[in-house]
């Protein structure tokens, strides 16, 4: 049985509750349950999702459609709309503040105001569909600038901008009658640099817009100044996706969640965007969660994988480990379903059966109706989470692969 190594860095959060995190873990999702109260019944979309994200990792969520990947992402951000309700669980997050202090808190217990400070700032998300996610009536640059000016103080940047502008005027016309005044003003501003006064709204907007253009430049948007002044419908899908990525990265988030951020793109653009994400991860010292159907993407870009089935993370391991030694029957089925160029098969292998109805999910292990290794216990009890090898977690009574037959 896997037990959490309770570490020493216990820090009290705002609710005076003690949350513990292993060192290096920046996000620990524990037993997350989310349901949707629909007219047909209660859709138990997440049934105790547990997963950890360490600093610097790129974690992939994989699984068939409807298994709860997006709901997990939205639950972490507390963005599940009604009729969805997060019913149980903890989302423990290690927040690095500006002065390098660390605050550990359960996101599900924060007040709405505290949560807003996290959203877009500490944890940002890029959604699946670049066509419907930007607001059609606002300029791209303004939409990026909005999140920048929301979460950043920008006092210093505003002051620097003012100094730059004055120096420019001075350089253009050094003999100006008010040159002395300008010089005085510059030195006054410079003396304030250590403790800049709060910027006016107007200055803040200008600085934010400038930073938005810089963000667009960073995601390699062609002609970023022009794009910033355009509306989403004037951009191609790939450009829109880049704009959304720029938006989500603009506050230097500690965690970036990409919910099928590249699915809508063609293969070459997809590769570009993924490489970009990994580069930016290094630049910004963040961690990434990638939600995808594409195991090729996973193999190339992710360090760890969480396999989801019907609202449960059934297997979690490093990418190499998971691909070389899949232990959960569902995972091996999923891996077998990828066509290999080297093998000639008559028909693509599929996992037999259908994704279960989550209003009346199967009892015990939710995979048992489709599982070839199922025994009677599988339909009676929920399999516990077990660490079969170091760092390799699985929820299954009869794990396969190299640990087959151990119990």
């Amino acid at each position, binding site marked *: 049985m896997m037990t959490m190594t309770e570490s020493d860095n216990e820090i009290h959060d705002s609710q005076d509750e003690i949350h513990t995190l292993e060192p290096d873990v920046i996000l620990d999702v524990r037993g997350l349950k989310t349901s949707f109260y629909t007219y047909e019944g209660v859709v138990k979309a997440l049934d105790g999702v547990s997963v950890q994200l360490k600093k610097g990792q790129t974690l992939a969520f994989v699984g068939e459609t409807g298994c709860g990947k997006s709901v997990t992402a939205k639950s972490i951000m507390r963005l599940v709309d009604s009729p969805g309700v997060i019913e149980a669980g903890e989302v423990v997050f290690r927040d690095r503040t500006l002065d390098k202090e660390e605050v550990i808190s359960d996101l599900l217990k924060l007040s709405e105001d505290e949560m807003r400070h996290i959203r877009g700032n500490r944890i940002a998300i890029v*959604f699946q569909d670049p066509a419907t996610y930007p607001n059609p009536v606002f300029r791209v640059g303004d939409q990026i600038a909005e999140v920048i000016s929301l979460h950043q103080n920008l006092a210093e940047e505003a002051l620097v901008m003012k100094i730059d502008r004055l120096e420019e005027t001075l350089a253009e016309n050094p003999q100006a009658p008010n040159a002395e005044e300008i010089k005085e003003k510059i030195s006054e501003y410079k003396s304030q640099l250590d403790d800049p006064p709060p910027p006016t709204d107007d200055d803040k907007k200008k600085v934010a817009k400038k930073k938005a253009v810089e963000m667009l430049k960073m995601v390699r948007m062609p002609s970023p100044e022009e794009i910033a002044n355009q509306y989403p419908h004037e951009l191609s899908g790939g450009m829109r996706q880049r704009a959304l990525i720029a938006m989500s990265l603009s506050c230097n988030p500690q965690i970036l969640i990409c919910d099928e951020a590249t699915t809508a793109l063609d293969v070459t653009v997809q590769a570009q965007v993924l490489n970009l994400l990994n580069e930016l991860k290094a630049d910004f010292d963040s961690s990434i969660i990638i939600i995808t159907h594409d195991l090729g993407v996973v193999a190339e870009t992710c360090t760890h994988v969480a396999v989801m089935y019907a609202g449960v993370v059934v297997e979690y391991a490093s990418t190499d480990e998971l691909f070389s030694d899949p232990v959960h029957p569902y995972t091996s089925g999923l891996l077998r379903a990828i066509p290999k160029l080297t093998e000639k098969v008559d028909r693509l292998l599929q996992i037999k059966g259908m994704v279960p109805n989550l209003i009346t999910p199967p009892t015990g292990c939710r995979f048992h109706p489709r599982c070839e290794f199922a025994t009677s216990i599988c339909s009676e009890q929920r399999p516990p989470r077990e660490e079969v090898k170091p760092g390799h977690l699985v929820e299954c009574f009869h794990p396969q692969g190299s640990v087959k037959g151990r119990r």
Partner: protein
Amino acid sequence: MKWSTMRLRDYVIRRIFLSIPVIIGVLAITFVLAYVVGNPLALYVDERTTPDAYAAIRLEHGLDEPIYVQFFLYLRNLFAGDWGYSNTARMDVIPTIQRYFPATIELAIVSMIIAVVIGIPLGIISATKKDKLTDHVTRVIALAGVSMPIFWFALMLKYLFYFQFFMWGLPFLPEGGRYSFIYVDYTPITNFVLLDAVLTLNGVLFFDALIHFVMPAMCLGYIFLAIITRMMRSSMLEVLKEDYITLARSKGLTERVVIYRHALRNAMIPTVTVIGLAFGGLITGAVLTETIFSWPGLGRWAVAAILTSDIPSINAFTILVAIIFVSANLIVDLIYATLDPRIRYG
């Protein structure tokens, strides 16, 4: 920046040119009504005209010319300001319009302002408090507004605020008219009472006129308030489901900013259409309201004209309503284009 304002200007110009054919079409219809379907001679004769004079009249007004020439003569007269003589008003059509039109437009504008100023926030609140008490109350109010006949509502208002309040010895609202001509001195300048009161800095007139506005504007405004509220509610609910709202929330914006900055502008787009169409409808709705509240507007004149087949007056009313519809649509399209960048680039 510059580039997109230019796009907006081009769009405006294009849109104005597009409304010209509509106006010409309406003019053609009014022409057909007067000169082709009916006997145009009737426009120029009265009981005292002797049959001997008919030929001279035909010659004078070009009634023997081919139809298309007559149409151009008709247009020439319209543009020269000769809209004929109104038998119902017992004077020329143009001064009749100048007298009655401001009363109608003023009533329509005041009603529309009431409907928009109350209806839009009500729709927003109803949508954001969906299925709560506020929403249910708002929906009942709106449903009553769209299903109630305007004349019935007008009579009920009048019964309560004029008759019953009077009986109870309460301060009651005036029964009709635009101002108390017995107590208040008023020499029309523009014929817009409120505007004239402001221009002449006449506070007494202003408040007197305002009191006279209460019932007719409430009556006319309520129906449009109901339409606007319902439209605003449903488009707001639609927009709140959109992905860009989730995106706005994922940025960490407050719910207020999400609704009033990100959702409102998108939700206004269909609502503006309805407001524009409703404004055209207001003029027609004014006919009933004006009759009940003795409002000296176009409506009463039009009703009288229709009852006595006063063709020049009917034509004038038709053309005016058409112009109002076209302008309302034009304004809607312009607001549209400022709200939604996709339109001005389309």
